[in-house]
């Protein structure tokens, strides 16, 4: 019996890291996906397609980002029909991506690599806020008080239950929060926070900001949130998703 030769070309999995800038901070997860699909077509990247009735490009994202938040560390996994170097993909695709989306780095994944989506456990954010007439030490004191609470109850909308409000305790999802002065003007601070993120436990930074505003009774204005990095917990360590992929490849 003759054995049929299967396509000799092997699919290649790749993880790419990109920034989501101010220009695209109002683009939803689904729309961002479509923007990538079209950029991939424009750049004529040899993307793999799923089989089935309506084949789609084999691409997937890491943890979704809320509307209005910028990010330095979004992750995208893609499957290619041909072998290509991450550097080549980055160069070709960056040329065809809308303003505000820029690929920064990438790595080849092994065949059994876990998806970016499934890996995410933590996100680090920087939140810029403005509080009139509050000094840095006052700000820090208030933050320490806030963090020493045994529980922090907030009302959360539940998208799957008709946006019904539910009270949840977010304290266990806050790993750490610190504050530094923002360089531009008085009364502006950066909140640096490490929060649980991903499919199991996920704390949206805007919820933390709201809880802190309620607790302090301060009017927090000019809120700007940026995601700095996304991590996966690996042997007690936090690795970003590219570091993790390299570990997996070793």
């Amino acid at each position, binding site marked *: 019996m003759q054995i049929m030769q299967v396509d000799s070309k092997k699919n290649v999995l790749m993880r790419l890291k990109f920034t989501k800038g*101010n220009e*695209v901070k*109002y683009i939803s997860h689904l729309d961002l996906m479509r923007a990538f699909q*079209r950029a991939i*077509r424009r750049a004529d990247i040899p993307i793999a397609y799923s089989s089935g009735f*309506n084949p789609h490009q084999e691409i997937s994202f890491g943890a979704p980002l809320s*509307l209005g938040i910028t990010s330095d560390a979004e992750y995208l996994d893609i499957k290619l029909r041909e072998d290509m170097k991450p550097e080549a993909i980055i160069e070709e695709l960056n040329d065809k991506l*809308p303003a505000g989306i820029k690929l920064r780095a990438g790595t080849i994944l092994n065949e059994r690599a876990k998806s970016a989506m499934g890996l995410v456990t933590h996100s680090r954010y920087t939140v810029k806020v403005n509080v009139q007439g509050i000094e840095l030490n006052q700000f820090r004191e208030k933050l320490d008080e806030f963090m020493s609470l045994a529980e922090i109850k907030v009302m959360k909308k539940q998208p799957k239950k008709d946006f019904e409000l539910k009270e949840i305790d977010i304290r266990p999802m806050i790993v750490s929060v610190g504050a530094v002065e923002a360089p531009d003007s008085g009364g502006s601070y950066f909140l640096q926070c490490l929060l649980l993120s991903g499919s199991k436990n996920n704390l949206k930074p805007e919820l933390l900001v709201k809880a802190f505003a309620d607790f302090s009774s301060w009017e927090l204005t000019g809120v700007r949130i940026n995601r700095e990095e996304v991590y996966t917990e690996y042997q007690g360590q936090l690795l970003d998703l590219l570091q993790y992929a390299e570990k997996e490849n070793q």
Partner: protein
Amino acid sequence: MNISTKDYIYDELLPRVEKPGRYIGTEWNSIHKDTKEISIRFAFCFPDVYEVGMSHLGMKIIYHLLNHQKDVYCERVFAPWPDMETEMRKSDIKLFALESRDPIKDFDFVGFTLQYEMSYTNILNMLDLAGIPIKASQREKGQPFVVAGGPCAYNPEPLSDFVDFFILGEGEEVTLEVIDAYRRWKATDKSREEFLAMVAEIRGIYVPSLYKVSYNADGTIEEIASNNESVPKKVRKRVVKDLKNSYFPDKVIVPFIDIVHDRIMLEIFRGCTRGCRFCQAGMIYRPIRERTVEELVELADRLLESSGYEEISLSSLSTSDFSKLNELVEKLVSKYESKRVGLSLPSLRIDSFSMKLVQEVQKIRKSGLTFAPEAGSQRMRDVINKGVTEEDLVKSVEAAFITGYSNLKLYFMIGLPTEAMEDVQDIADLGYKVVDTYYSVPKEKRGKGVNITISVSSFVPKPFTPFQWEPQDSIETLKEKQRYLRGAIKNKKLTYNWHEPFVSYMEAIFARGDRRLGEVLYKAWQLGCKFDGWDQHFKFDTWMEAFKEAGLEPEFYAYRRRELDEVLPWDHIDVGVSKKYLRGEYKKALKGELTRDCRVVCTGCGINLLEEGGVCK
């Protein structure tokens, strides 16, 4: 904290509104220019929400055409959704153009495209939001010229209080002539009136303030006269004689958010030769002009490469009439199948429909099938000159069922001239026949779970059609016909879709309205009417109140049968199709006589006399 208005809009306002992606303006292929190098700013306004406006082909053409001019910067503006409007008014933010976020009150031109009558209040609202005087007579030097074009501009009268000038017909050439006149005018210190007089001399430009309308005692028009000798008595529409050498952009803006028609629209031809008597598009877009297959394939290539779109729609008024459709489809499919680019065909005729073609098209992506018999009885279809038979429909749906389709949509109108209840009954009967046809196809050949959607709209008589003299059915009659159909369509396999007739009534009024309706429009807007094309925003009672306040009878416009020699509000506009031809078609309609497709033999509509040397091929 001091931040610029632009940043305020972006960072403070947008987080508060639904779908902020509507207002960001940085989509792929959007044009951003350095305003220091620009002398003419043009705001292209679509008086509806982003998702609707971005689906419009004309805007895509004119946007890139204008931006092709070095000294011109054309930007997009859509009607802000009410939540956005509320935020803008609260913060005193004036209506801005998407690309630069600059207020459009400082622009040179504010241009509106008129695609449907129910968008008119949005025009007034957008001007108000922009801080531009709503009435043309109140605008001063230094304020923009408000210009309007598009299919509804052929009866511009209801908007004549608000628009400085109208562009009639295809805009590719005439828009640039207007820009040219503007360059010359701007170099002088002439008045607004002098600029309007300049453009009035350009063919296809209608300046309503240069015309006077007088009325008879019974409310009909006595005369429409131009103010002076140099203004044309009749304004002739513009057509692009040679599509091949006319401008067509090789890129289109690719939106981030999902829009109504999110695909490449490949315009395969303009005009239509069928001569359906209810259809305004079929008359006003004449003559027929096809692009060649080579041109189209090349254009598709460039558009796909620059956009990354995954679907092409072959767009026209009657795509199955394209003389080389099979060749075009084969070429496109063979070229793009491996790249997984889908094709779609809108509006298929049931007599020239080929299942082989549909299968070819749907190799890559399957979509639904819609057929438009338009009327239920043969008599009725003859009145409207649809030129298709029940046999055509049965044959077509049979072929569709054999191919595996089991969900079809059938499109009809009620309220057509001479319609009786038997004709309405025939719509239901036709639906049942289609279901029977499904069951006549052997089980192993047909798909599972047949469902036929019968979609019924109310007929609106339109200017420049053979039915322009006809009254619309009253709201009561239309409701009764809808009730009747609801009773007659009682089958689980049939789904009946209809709309309340109130919007159709308003459309009938404004489609054939005169200048006096400007007052009604203004009052209705003041009373809070906007987004009238949207069920959740349409306020019928408010509209009726506006009529009362303006002292006008809506019935006069919707329900009155016009005399054949009456002066119609659009009689000073020449679309090329003659009134004589329309009268003849009207008489034939009432006798149920058919007129042939003019590709077969010229039916003498008059369009060939529009340009020297003729325009029909």
